[in-house]
Every structure is written in C-alpha cells, then in structure tokens.
C-alpha cells in the first residue's frame, strides 16, 4: 500500500503552490487528448492526486500513470477551474525522473545533441548544400564551449550521465 509522503508533497507544493487548489473534478482528464486515447494509462487527474498524496514512488519510479505521455498541449491548464498549473507540476515530476536517469531515450538524445553542438540538430552537409541552393545564409550558432560551460553549471551534464545511453 502506498503511504502519504509529506516530504515529496511539500517539495511539489514549494515548486508550485497551485497543486493545493485541486478538488479532483477531472475537467483536466475530460479535455485531455491523450487520456481519451490511452484507456487510463495516462490520466492527468490521477497524476495530480498522487502528487497531492506525495506518492513519489508511483510518480517517479513506477511512472504510473505515465507522466511522459503528456503531450504538453496545455489544454488542461486552460480548462482547470481552479487554475492548477498541471503542465508545470508534470514538468517537475519529469525533472525528478531525469535526475534518476529514468526517462525515454528521445529526451536523452536531444540533450546529448545540445551538449555536443549547442543546437538540437547538427547541420549535415546535405542540409548545408540545400540551404545554399535555396539561397539561405550561413547560420552562426552558439559557441559549443560557452553552452557546455552553462550545462555544467546547471548540473545538466552531470545528470544526463545517469542514464545508460
């Protein structure tokens, strides 16, 4: 049986106090395009309920419901009669998953690309040629050293290593 974890609950509340306004009306799940298609596998109301109860293990370790299925369409945020900032709260939960190295591969590869290139998609020779043919100018993107320095300061480089690539 899950036990209320006040520490985790307070951590979420500290990050986003709007969590405490939720009265579980389920407007979020009713308007959610993913909930509609996943037969309960994804359910924003339930994620918020588990956050209120501080169910860290369920949310971060077991990922039940799977918070990674949120499409970030922000429909729930607009619809919520209590102005609960659901997407922000989901983002905090996902940030904790990231710190534990437990998250989908696509996020890992995007993070790696930014560490290596400063941008999420490196410029291939084929694209550079295509740009030239289309009459587009060269793009001078950020200095990779500068971006890496920031990614070290925010602990991003450190945290991304926790996931087996």
């Amino acid at each position, binding site marked *: 049986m899950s036990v209320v974890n006040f520490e985790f609950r307070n951590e979420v509340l500290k990050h986003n106090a709007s969590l405490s306004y939720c009265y579980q009306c389920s407007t979020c799940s009713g308007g959610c395009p993913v909930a509609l298609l*996943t037969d309960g596998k994804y359910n924003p109301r339930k994620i918020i309920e588990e956050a209120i109860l501080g169910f860290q293990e369920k949310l971060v370790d077991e990922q039940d419901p799977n918070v990674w299925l949120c499409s970030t369409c922000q*429909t729930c945020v607009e619809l919520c009669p209590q102005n609960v900032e659901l997407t922000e709260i989901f*983002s905090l939960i996902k940030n904790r998953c990231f710190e534990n190295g437990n998250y989908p591969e696509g*996020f890992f590869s995007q993070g790696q690309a*930014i560490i290596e290139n400063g941008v999420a998609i490196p410029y291939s020779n084929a694209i550079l040629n295509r740009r030239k043919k289309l009459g587009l100018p060269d793009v001078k*993107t950020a200095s990779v050293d500068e971006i890496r320095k920031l990614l070290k300061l925010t602990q991003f480089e450190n945290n991304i290593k926790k996931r087996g690539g």
Partner: protein
Amino acid sequence: MGYDLFLGCVIPARLPFLEASSRKVFEKLGIELKDVDGFSCCPDPTGIEQIDHKTWLTLGARNLSLSRNSNGGIVSFCSGCVETLKGVNYFLNKDKKTKEEVNKDLKKIGGSYDGNTNVKHFAQVLYENLDKIRENITHPLDGFKVAVHYGCHYLRPSEYIQWDDPFEPKTIDEIVRVLGAESIDYELKLECCGNPVEKSDKELSLLMIKNKLQSIQDSGANCVALVCPACYQQFDFNQRELSKEEGIDFDIPVFYLSELVALALGIDRGDLGLNFHRIKPKSLFEIVHFA
C-alpha cells in the same frame, strides 16, 4: 520596424525550405529580419524543459540576452521557440530569485539578461501586416479549401503566450481568407497533432495524427495550413509513415502559412522548395487551376 530573427533548430537544420518561404514573404512585405550570431537551441519546450527546467531557463535567457531590442525584439518562424522564449521571460520576471540565479550563471560566460526582450511569432507579424498583404496579392488562392491547424504552442498557455484565443483562435483563419482561400472548419481543429509524444510512444503519436487527418479529410478540405515545424513534420512526414505502417493514404498537401502567403504574393514558386514536401502539392495546383 524590423526584428532579430531567431531560427531555432528544426527549421534551419532540417526544413530549410520553410525558412526560405518565410524570409521571402518578410522581404516582399518590407519587414526587415536581422540575422544574429550565437543563438543556441531555444531550448525545446517539449524536450529540454521537461527534463531540466533550470537548463531551459538558463539557455533561454542567454538567447534572449543576445537580442538588444534595437528593433522590435525577436521574431521566430517556430511555435516551440516562441513558447520557450516567451515562457522564459515570464518565469524570470515572475520569480526574482530564479532570475538572480540564472544571471549568476550567465555572468560566468560574460552575459546577463534583464527580462525585457519582446518576442513574436511570425504569424503574429503577418497578422499585424494584413493590410499590406491584402494590397500585394497578385495570385488569390481561389479553390484552396484550407484546414487551419493552429497547433498548441501558438496559443497556449495563454497566460504567457498572450496572443489570439486559446480555444477560439481566429488570426490564421483570417490570414488564409485574405489570401483568397476558404477556411474549412473540422471537428478536431484544436486537437494536438501528437508530435511531442513521439519521444515516449510512437504508436500513440501516429494515432493522434491519423485522427486529425481523418477529421480533415471528412471536412472536405483539400490542404492544411500550419505554423510550427514540429506540427509540419507530423502532418507531412507522417502521412508517409501512415501509408507505410497502415496502408492509409490521405494525400493531403501540408503548407506552412508562409508558403501560402508567398504563393498569393506571386513569389516565384520555384524558389520555395515545395519539392521538398513529402506530399507534393502539384496535383492540388492542377485541381484548383493555380497558375
């Protein structure tokens, strides 16, 4: 007035033809776009923000700091970049302590950010120049029955996007109508295209776009107009994927809004890179007799 151009990653490094039509439209309308050196990934609000909020704020603030507001601020052709840059502004201005922390890191690379950079979506700039577009139309889009897809991040969260209406948007429909096309309503008009869940569940992502395309086909529309490169890939590239995986051929051409404006303004079709679309618009041009 002119703007600093924020290109982001997906458009310049994967879909440069969308950049070509957008730049040409701005040039034709006499709105200056200034290229700025040194931008990084915005970063992606459906990617990096979801795994590390602090990194999202820090790189976003660095990008915003590179625009000096010498013009009208930043304009971007990408809804994701616009959401990030507006969102980072919003969070930093709401929370002084976080802003100080971010600036402490930026100082170590010789930067700082004051929170004052304006950010606009290119479709907003087009909407603000609707009269100028109307005056310059040489090739009205007669016969184009357009299913407008706003996409989520163009509209929401309204708290910091502060543009159009989150559930009853009208700006892109109006632009499309000014071009001479018809805007066709369809049941799933405001639904998410499903692109962001591709990283977590590819099957679900394909189901979401399949439902949208079906709704568009049922409405009688003959093409799609949209304003986000993630949505573009989902609509155009994944029609091929649906054909391969499930044998469903929608064959609905997908236009970036800038491409439709460019066509109506008489910009040479050969310069737009329409041949890079997976679903070729050629047969639509024939059906509607678009010269």
